[in-house]
């Protein structure tokens, strides 16, 4: 499909050419709370999240993206992977870029570890047949051997994040767009992640990772960019970028997905209530709150 177009003869892994994107930001009605509750929500306002972004990432490069909340970090990753369509400009990619962006949120707690591996693997582009052979490796990497038939419900968020990451790196693709949520709050798992990424990097895999602590993932980064208010304000080494990033305010304490509407997350707005006689009953697959 259009959003996943691959340009095989492109001489870099991914290229942003004057890219801009508007994202919705929920805005509530003004006035007394009681009236607001009955009046419904005002149409979400669209705000520019990225504007005039031009960027080339050569194949095999490890690029760190530093940016504060609402700086457009996640939009940049999703545009690179093709899970967003730009409003302005063009994004071209040489090969598939795996979107490892809050993968854990897409998992279903009522499904078993094995079922989740199949479904998430499938979403990221691994066919069920190939996945069948990879399952022991995924379970080993995530430290969930012997728990494949258990549902996700009793697992901790950390375990689920480890599983998500372990499925993602199995795709065997040449490029990854990774959001920090997967690993940054799990120091015990960080060495495993680092080891795996170093190995993949030696194999020529391209990494675009958004993080405020990129040193957790790799020893050496080729390049770092700093995003601020939807624009690239620095394109330099990691050391210099980190200094600049600290100068503009550094990492957020509550560093959640930056592209969700500010006031409330999307799923909280979906409130349809119980279905009636004519309708199919809802199953347990409704999106649940993200693991952070």
């Amino acid at each position, binding site marked *: *499909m259009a*959003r*996943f177009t691959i340009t095989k003869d492109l001489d870099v892994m991914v290229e942003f050419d004057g890219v801009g*994107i*508007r*994202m*919705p930001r929920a805005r509530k009605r003004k006035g007394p709370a009681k009236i607001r509750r009955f009046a*419904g929500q005002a149409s979400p306002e669209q705000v520019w999240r990225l504007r005039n972004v031009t960027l080339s990432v050569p194949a095999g490069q490890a690029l760190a993206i530093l940016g504060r909340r609402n700086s457009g970090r996640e939009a940049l990753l*999703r545009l690179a*992977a*093709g*899970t*967003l*369509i730009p*409003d302005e400009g063009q994004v071209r990619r040489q090969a*598939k870029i*795996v*979107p*490892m*962006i*809050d*993968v854990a*949120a*897409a998992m279903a707690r*009522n*499904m078993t570890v094995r*079922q989740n591996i*199949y*479904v*998430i693997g*499938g*979403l*990221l*582009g691994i*066919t*069920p047949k190939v996945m069948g052979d990879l399952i022991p490796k995924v379970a080993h990497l995530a430290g969930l051997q012997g728990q494949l038939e258990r549902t996700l419900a009793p697992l901790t968020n950390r375990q689920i994040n480890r599983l998500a990451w372990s499925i993602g790196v199995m795709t065997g693709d040449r490029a990854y767009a990774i959001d920090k949520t997967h690993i940054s709050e799990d120091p015990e798992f960080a060495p495993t992640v680092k080891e795996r990424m170093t190995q993949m990097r030696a194999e020529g895999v391209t990494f675009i990772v958004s993080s405020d602590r990129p040193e957790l993932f790799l020893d050496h980064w080729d390049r770092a960019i700093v995003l601020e208010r939807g624009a690239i304000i620095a394109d330099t080494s990691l050391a210099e970028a980190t200094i600049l990033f600290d100068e503009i305010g550094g990492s957020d304490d509550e560093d959640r997905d930056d592209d969700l509407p500010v006031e409330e997350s*999307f*799923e909280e*707005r*979906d*409130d*349809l209530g119980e*279905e*009636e006689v*004519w*309708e*199919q*009953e809802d*199953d*347990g*697959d*409704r*999106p*649940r709150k*993200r693991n952070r």
Partner: protein
Amino acid sequence: MLRMLVIRELQTQYSRFRFGYLWTLMEPLGLSIILWMVFSVLLGPRNLGLQPYLLFLSVAMLPWWWFTKGVNSSVRSFRRNVAQLRISTLPTQFWVLRILLVSTVEFVMSLPVIVIAIILTRDLPGPFIIFFPIAILAQFLFMYGIALALASWNVIAPDVARLVRLVLRGLFYLSPILYSVSNIPEHVRPLAALNPLVGILGLYRIGWWPQEIEDMVHYGLSLGIGAMTFVIGWIVFRRLESRVLKES
């Protein structure tokens, strides 16, 4: 991948119920019997629909059941899968197609209800039964168009799902399910033909009641609007796809 997602959805739906698949048969069969009792037994014989009424009702009730279940659930398919959409490398429309295919499988699995009605009424269909699979295809495309457009709109305004429920309730009475096209006054028929379900339900029924084909011009109009709905639904989805992804 799509097959796996469809099977997974079906497993989720059926594993929770003690009677599992049997519900797919019992729900439309039960409703057909109730309506048959009301309109044929309780209210006495009247000039509503064609005979045998139980079969007449079942042949339209099953497609209607499929239509209402398919549309109602697929309207919410993007909203239900926002987290999946963020990482999915599959085409966006797969999420609607998945839910629609689930309801299609259920519809096919519920077809034995018609066989039961045939056995009870001992009324075998004629050669026009060949239109039955064509009707299934026409209904699928019509539903796919509607579902794509509505699921996309529902992402922007969740009110759409509620509105759809209301409209579907009205459409039940505006479509020839309880009654035959012949029950509609002649001067109103061109207006009724604006509803694509009139043509689709007619195609299902003409195997048993060839007289339903008499009004061919109106059926053509009805099916034409159904085909147009598919095209418009696809265009709407393409225009809103970017917005759907942003909301995920």
